[in-house]
């Protein structure tokens, strides 16, 4: 039998190990963030948010150049992707957790996880075959579909897990007072699980927001704002991760710092989305 002292020491050791692990995980992130900010901050100026990219010669000759079209394109493509992915992901998550005896559930779970393991570039290929080929042109819509493919498996899995964590007794209470099942799920279980639902959706969104590969053959990229506002959906659109990549591999140091600045903007964008979502869900108390 261990003494109380031994048990308390063990308790302390475990606590320090937990703190240490957290630091070990967060340290690289902090280093990366500092690296990104140090390299990119110099390129963040008014022009960056108001001008179109044009070409490297603009940067080399000191003419104004920026990424306004990229930032807007990212907003459109990412939110449209979220809009497409959330119903499917939530639906699948509800199916897995609220209809646990459904015959297709094991298949759905395995297929979903398999889809999650496919490299994003292949999801872009799928969107190319399903959207770009029939439409005959690259488009923001196709890019959003490709990103939705990235989000869906993550949202489905996290939704299942969040709903499962709500005690079954809550559902029984709802059913007992005569509520139909769908009302129980939509107005009792889901609000109770909203913290988990939002966390899952945010991770999926964050993951998709940083992907460049699936956009290469779908939203394609653009050096300017489209001529028409529908061009954001139906024509080639620029997005931050993809632009970041092409800026980073170019030979020009101006473009390198613009690439890092694009990374800053992308991360700030994701942080703002996190904050907004958390704020909105907290308000409901």
């Amino acid at each position: 039998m261990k003494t109380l002292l031994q048990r308390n020491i063990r308790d302390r050791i475990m606590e320090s190990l937990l703190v240490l692990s957290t630091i070990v995980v967060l340290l690289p992130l902090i280093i990366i963030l500092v690296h990104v900010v140090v390299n990119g901050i110099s390129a963040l100026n008014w022009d960056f948010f108001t001008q179109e990219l044009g070409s490297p010669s603009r940067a080399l000759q000191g003419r104004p150049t920026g990424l306004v079209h990229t930032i807007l394109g990212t907003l459109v493509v990412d939110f449209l992707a979220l809009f497409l992915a959330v119903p499917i992901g939530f639906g699948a998550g509800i199916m897995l957790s609220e209809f646990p005896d459904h015959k297709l559930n094991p298949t759905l779970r395995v297929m979903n996880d398999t889809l999650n393991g496919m490299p994003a570039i292949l999801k872009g290929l799928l969107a190319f075959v399903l959207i770009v080929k029939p439409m005959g042109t690259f488009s923001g819509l196709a890019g959003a579909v490709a990103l939705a493919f990235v989000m869906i498996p993550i949202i489905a899995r996290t939704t299942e897990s969040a709903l499962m964590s709500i005690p079954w007794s809550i559902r029984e209470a709802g059913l007992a007072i005569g509520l139909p099942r769908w009302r129980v799920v939509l107005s009792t279980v889901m609000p109770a699980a909203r913290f988990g639902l939002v966390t899952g959706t945010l991770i999926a969104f964050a993951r998709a927001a940083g992907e460049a590969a699936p956009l290469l053959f779908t939203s394609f990229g653009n050096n300017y704002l489209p001529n028409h506002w529908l061009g954001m959906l139906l024509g080639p659109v620029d997005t931050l991760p993809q632009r970041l990549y092409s800026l980073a591999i170019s030979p020009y140091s101006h473009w390198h710092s613009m690439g890092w600045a694009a990374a800053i903007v992308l991360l700030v964008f994701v942080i703002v989305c996190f904050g907004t979502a958390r704020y909105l869900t907290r308000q409901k108390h």
Partner: protein
Amino acid sequence: MIRMKPALTAALIAILAVSCGGNGDSPGEQRRDRVDILGAGATFPAPLITAMADEYRDLTRNRVTVNYQSIGSGGGIRQFIEQTVMFGMSEAFLSDEVMNNVEQATGGRAFNMPITLADVVPTYNVPGVGSGLVFSGELLVEIFMGDITRWNHARISELNPDVDLPNLPLTVVHRSDGSGTTNVWTSYLSRVSDRWRERVGFATSVNWPTGIGGNGNEGVAGAVQNTTGAIGYNSFAYALLNNMSYGSVINAAGNIIEPSFEATTEAANIELPDDTRILFTNTPAEYGYPIAGFAWMLIYENLDANRAISNRREAKELINFLVWSITEGQELSELLGFARLPEAAVEKSIQMIRQLKWNGELIGQQVLDEQDLLSSVPRPENYL
């Protein structure tokens, strides 16, 4: 979460409406006049093409927008075949098979028009040694085969008698991603060595006998700069603009050629076939830099057969841009780290443009005639 979406969507639409509305300051009539030209392909020439596009957009006062995205030579060829782009771009010319397929499918040829030149230089990181180490083709083959493993090897010092080479292990770095740069580099090694041709060959990616693979120009540059004793290869523009040490190469005529735009242009100043489908690595040109090749613009002879081009006006604007890019557009080259096309290549391209058709009508010739007319008549102000 569920409640926030309509609000966000509304905000988004508002942002869009404002930004795009603000952009379209020109009257509606003018906007309908606008033409978007879509092209895609090789990564290496992308900075030059986008710069040309930008300049051209200014020249036409925002009327013609050329959107070029670098999706790789393979991607460029495939999108060209899929007809999702108006022109493709590639650092490898179309194979006979593809040329035949296009001819069967569209009733016209596929043209490979040289648009600029790609040049590749050996880059290295040896303490105390700057740019200018001399390499021969055979020496590079031995290094990239893994036969030479130290910098003070006799084969290196015999070409560089004045350089004090350290006794340092030599690490080979190559591109891991398929790239036109690798294509040009391995094509040169294949030309100078039968052993290389039979064992490794040349392509956009090959089965490397040794070394580590860096992803992209910056991957190779990063690995070379961070590894003492590394040797790799980069596009000349990348090496020049990122202060990497690069070597000179002995060409087929036996001259030591220091990489330069002029030497690259000179390399292509040779007898060209009419379709310009030729690799001129290890060029016979006496003062040409031996590790260089064309980047080609891919275009259908029958422009109407390309589903990406929807009307005659678009076809005409596309040709206008082509003509401009191989003539006046070349002025942008040096600023961006590119070599200019030699006269011989421009002439071949003009020949091809002459044959471009829209529903059988020779609109390429028409455009050339109009431009000649323009150049003899004084142009409207702001046009050039």
